[in-house]
Every structure is written in structure tokens, then in C-alpha cells.
């Protein structure tokens, strides 16, 4: 049972480059989320999707975009990376918007 798979696990990126973080779940959950985790700030929601075909903005959406073409995949794109986007990114899913969250192992992104 894979649960949530994120890729890449780690990436160093030059500022200005485009980057897509991949997230795939095999639990058929309706809701999916992208969070960033920065030291001392806990997790902050970037974007979410309550069901395939719909997305919404979270607390810190600027500089990021997402798509939800199907139930399983929820990629996060940085169109033009900036150093302040250096963070650990976590994808999560849940079968309802108020239920238990299942997390991937994270993608550590460094923007130089």
C-alpha cells in the first residue's frame, strides 16, 4: 500500500526556473492538499482540491499553481522559483474535508 507518493524527495533549483512537484495517491480520496513547512511556522496550506476538477487557494498561494485533472494526481508548480520558496513541501489527502489527513514524505526544495 503506497498511500501518498511525492517526487522528487529533494531538489536544488536556480531562481527563475520552473519546477513541478508531483503527488499521487492510491486511496481514492476526494480531497488533496499542498502544504509548505518552514522552521517555527508549522504547516501552511498553499492550495487544495476538494474533488477532481476543482482547486482552491490556501493561506500562502502566491507563486504556486495546481491542477487536479483526476482523483489520483495533484501536481504543484512553481512557475518562476524564488529563494523564499525554499521549504519542505508536503502533499496530503483525505476522504472528506474534515477527516484524517494522510501525508506524503515531503519534497525538500532549495532555491538558490
Amino acid at each position, binding site marked *: 500500500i503506497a498511500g501518498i507518493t511525492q517526487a522528487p524527495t529533494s531538489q536544488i533549483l536556480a531562481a527563475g526556473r520552473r519546477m513541478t512537484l508531483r503527488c499521487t495517491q492510491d486511496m481514492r480520496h476526494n480531497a488533496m492538499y499542498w502544504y509548505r513547512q518552514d522552521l517555527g*511556522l*508549522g*504547516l*501552511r496550506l498553499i492550495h487544495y482540491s476538494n474533488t477532481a476538477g476543482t482547486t482552491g487557494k490556501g493561506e500562502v498561494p502566491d507563486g504556486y499553481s495546481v491542477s487536479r485533472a483526476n482523483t489520483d494526481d495533484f501536481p504543484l508548480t512553481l512557475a518562476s522559483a524564488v529563494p523564499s520558496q525554499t521549504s519542505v513541501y*508536503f502533499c496530503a489527502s483525505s476522504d472528506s474535508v*474534515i477527516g*484524517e*489527513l494522510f*501525508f506524503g514524505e515531503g519534497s525538500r526544495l532549495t532555491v538558490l
Partner: protein
Amino acid sequence: SQQGEEDPQALSIQEGENATMNCSYKTSINNLQWYRQNSGRGLVHLILIRSNEREKHSGRLRVTLDTSKKSSSLLITASRAADTASYFCVSTGGFKTIFGAGTRLFVKA
């Protein structure tokens, strides 16, 4: 910030002692959840308490919820070195899920 607050930020105890972590939140909730994160890993769900519940147990974990004070506490009894991790409370209400900044627990063997 929409974030909840957790107290203490860090806690160091001896193996066998109890660990208590507190969490406050700002809005009305459907439920409150606690998660654990080992260093560098994803978060793992520990326990969920609904807004109409006051206390819940799961193994060595005990969670309380006081909606009048908008606060919750997580008690880990008879702690073990393997309990060393960060613990986060997550309040869920109005289709929003809000994380606290976490408590870092270190259990000394």
C-alpha cells in the same frame, strides 16, 4: 496568522514520565486532530476529537477538548525514547484545516 498556538514549543523529559502539550485555536471547529512528525518525515495522524467530545483515549494518548476556551491538550503517559518527535494540533472547521506550530518533544532514555 490563522495558525493555532501550541505550548510549550519544546519539552524535554525522562523516559517513563508523562508529557503534556497544549494547543489553542481561534475559530469554531468540527474537530481537532493531533499529528506526530519524526524529524524529516511526513506527519502521522494520532487521534481525532470531535467538537462535541470532551475527552478521548487511544493507548497511551489522552486528548481533552475545551471548546469554551478553544483549547486542547495531548497527554502521553509513560513516555518512551521512541516518542521523541514533533507534535502538531490541527483544528478543522468551516472547510479549513489549520495547523499549530508544533511542540518538539525529546524523551531521554
